[in-house]
C-alpha cells in the first residue's frame, strides 16, 4: 500500500470536488422546480429562487392539478394528464407488440431485400417530423381522427414502429440459433416458435421497449401541438399553454408545480428502472 501523502490524496479530492460540483449543477433545475412549487407567489417575487421556502404551501400543486386555466374552462392539468395516459398506454402496447413480431420475422426468416428494408427502417427513426406533418394532418382529417386521442395513438404507433422493430431485431439477432433450429425440428410452427420460445425469453427487451416508448410518447410535444385540440391536448401541450399564456399574473409557483406534475411519470420510470432506460438510449442510438 502506498502512503497517503498530499500528492496521492489531492487528485482524489479534486475528483470528488468536480463530481459534486457537476452533480449540484445538474440537480439545480429540479431543485428549483420543487422548492418554488411550495412557496407562496409573493415569496418568489420578493427574492431568491434558490432559497428554501419560508412558508410552506401546497396550494400551487392544487391549483396546477385542478384549477389552472388551460383550455376553455379552468380545469387544471388533470384532464390532460389523463389524456397523456390514454395516449401513451395503447401507443406503447401496440408499437411494442408490432416491434416484437417484426423483429422476429426479420431475424428468423430469409427475405429478398431484407437489407434494404432494414436500412429504410433505420432512416425512418431519424427523420425530422416536420417532413410528415402536412400529409399526416390531412390523413387524420380524412380518417376523422383529427384532434382526437386515438389520432395521436395512431401517429405514435406509426412513428414508433421503427424504434421498437430495431430493438427486437437486434435482440433476436443474438438469440441462440441452435434453440430455434431444434424447436423447428420438433415441429414448432410460426406462431409456436414465437410464443413458446422467443417471447418468453424477451423480458429485458420488452422492458426496454416499453420504457423507451413511454418516455418518448409522454414527452412528445410536436405531434401533440399539431394534431390535438382543447379536448385532446397531451400534458406537454397543456403545460406549455399554461406557462406561455400571456394573459394574467404569472403564477411561477403554479408553473413549477405543473412542470413537476408533467415530468413526474417519466421521472418515476427513470428512477425505478434506470438500467433499462440507459439500455434503451444505447440501443436506440449506438446500434440503430
Amino acid at each position, binding site marked *: 500500500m502506498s502512503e497517503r501523502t498530499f500528492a496521492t490524496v489531492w487528485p482524489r479530492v479534486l475528483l470528488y470536488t468536480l463530481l459534486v460540483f457537476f452533480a449540484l449543477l445538474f440537480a439545480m433545475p429540479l431543485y*428549483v422546480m420543487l422548492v418554488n412549487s411550495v412557496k407562496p407567489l409573493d415569496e418568489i417575487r420578493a427574492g431568491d*429562487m*434558490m432559497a428554501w421556502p419560508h412558508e410552506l404551501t401546497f396550494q400551487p400543486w392544487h391549483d396546477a392539478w385542478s384549477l389552472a386555466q388551460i383550455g376553455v374552462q379552468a380545469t387544471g392539468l388533470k384532464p390532460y394528464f389523463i389524456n397523456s395516459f390514454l395516449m401513451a398506454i395503447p401507443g406503447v402496447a401496440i408499437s411494442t407488440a408490432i416491434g416484437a*413480431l417484426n423483429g422476429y420475422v426479420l431475424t428468423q426468416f430469409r427475405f429478398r431485400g431484407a*437489407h434494404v428494408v432494414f436500412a429504410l427502417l433505420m432512416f425512418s427513426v431519424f427523420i425530422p417530423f416536420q*417532413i410528415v406533418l402536412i400529409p399526416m394532418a390531412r390523413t387524420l382529417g380524412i380518417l376523422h381522427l383529427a384532434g382526437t386521442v386515438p389520432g395521436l395513438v395512431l401517429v405514435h404507433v406509426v412513428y414508433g414502429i421503427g424504434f421498437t422493430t430495431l430493438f427486437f431485431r437486434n435482440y433476436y439477432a443474438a438469440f441462440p440459433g441452435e434453440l430455434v433450429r431444434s424447436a423447428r425440428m420438433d415441429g414448432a410452427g410460426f406462431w409456436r416458435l414465437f410464443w413458446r420460445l422467443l417471447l418468453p425469453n424477451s423480458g429485458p427487451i420488452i422492458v426496454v421497449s416499453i420504457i423507451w416508448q413511454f418516455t418518448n410518447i409522454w414527452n412528445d410535444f410536436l405531434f401533440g401541438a399539431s394534431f390535438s385540440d382543447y379536448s385532446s391536448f397531451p400534458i406537454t401541450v397543456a403545460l406549455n399553454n399554461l406557462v406561455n399564456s400571456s394573459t394574467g399574473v404569472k403564477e411561477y409557483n403554479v408553473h413549477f408545480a405543473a412542470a413537476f406534475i408533467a415530468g413526474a411519470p417519466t421521472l418515476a420510470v427513470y428512477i425505478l428502472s434506470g438500467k433499462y432506460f440507459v439500455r434503451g438510449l444505447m440501443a436506440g442510438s449506438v446500434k440503430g
Partner: protein
Amino acid sequence: MKAPLIAKAVLSPSVLLIAVCVYGYIAFTGWLSFTASTMMTTLTYSGPEAYVRLMGLNNWILSVKNLGIFATLYIVGCGILGLLLAVLIDQKIRAESAFRSIFLYPMALSFIVTGTAWKWLMDPSIGLERSMHAIGWDSFAFGWVKDSDLAIYCIVIAAVWQTSGFVMALFLAGLRGVDAEVVNAARLDGARPWRIYQRVIFPQLGASFISAFVILAHMSIKSYDLVIALTNGGPGRASWLPSLFMYQYTFTRNEMAVGAASAVLMLIAIAIVVIPYILRETRGEGRHV
C-alpha cells in the same frame, strides 16, 4: 429458413405503414414544395419558386444562422462535458451509480418541463440574477433570455444541460470497452494518466465519437420543444430555428409551399449526417438465417 407466407403477412402491414407514412409522406411534402400551395394545397407543379422565396426570407436566413450557432455549441458543449463526466466517473469512484443517475436524469424529462424550469431560472426579474444579488454579488447580470442577440445561447445552455448525461453514457460505454492490457502496459512504462488518456484511450473511442456526433447533430436539427418552452422563438423572432420556421410558415402564415420547402431542407441536412452512419452500421448485416 426462407420466409413462409405467414411471415410475410405479419411483416407487411408495418412495411406498408412505413412506406406510406414515412417515404410516401416525404414524397408528398417534397412535391408540395414545388407547388404554389398556401393555406389550401394545390398539386400543380410550379417550379422551384418556393425555394427561391425561402432563400430570400430574412426569417429563414436568421433561422439557419441560429441553427449554425446552436448546433456548433451544442455538439461541442455536450461532447466536452459528456467526455469529462465519463472520465471522472471512470476513476473507480464511490457512489458511481448515484452520480451517473444525476447526470442522466434530464434525459427522462420532456423539454417542455425542463424548458419551463430554465425559462424562469434565466429570467432576470426572478431567477438566477436575483439569487446572485441575494448572496451579495450585486453587479451580477444575466439577462440573455431577453436579449435578441443572446437568447439563442440560453437555449444552448439548457440543451447542453439536458443531453450531456447521455453523451456521458455513450463515452462511458466506450471507456469500459477499452483494452485494459494496453492501458496497463502504458502505466507500467510510467506514462502519466493524462498522457494515457490522450495517447491510448481516446484514440480507441472512435466509434463513440462518431455516434455522439451523429446523434447530437440530428437532435440539434430537430430541436423544437425546448425553444418553444424557453423563449417561444423570441424575443421577437430572435431565437427561431428551421423547425420553428417550418411550423410558423406552414400552419400560421399559410405559406404551405415555403413551409414544405423548409422541411425538405431539414430532411436533407439530417440525411447528410445520418446516411453514411446507417450505411456503416448496416454493412454486412441484415442477412440473418
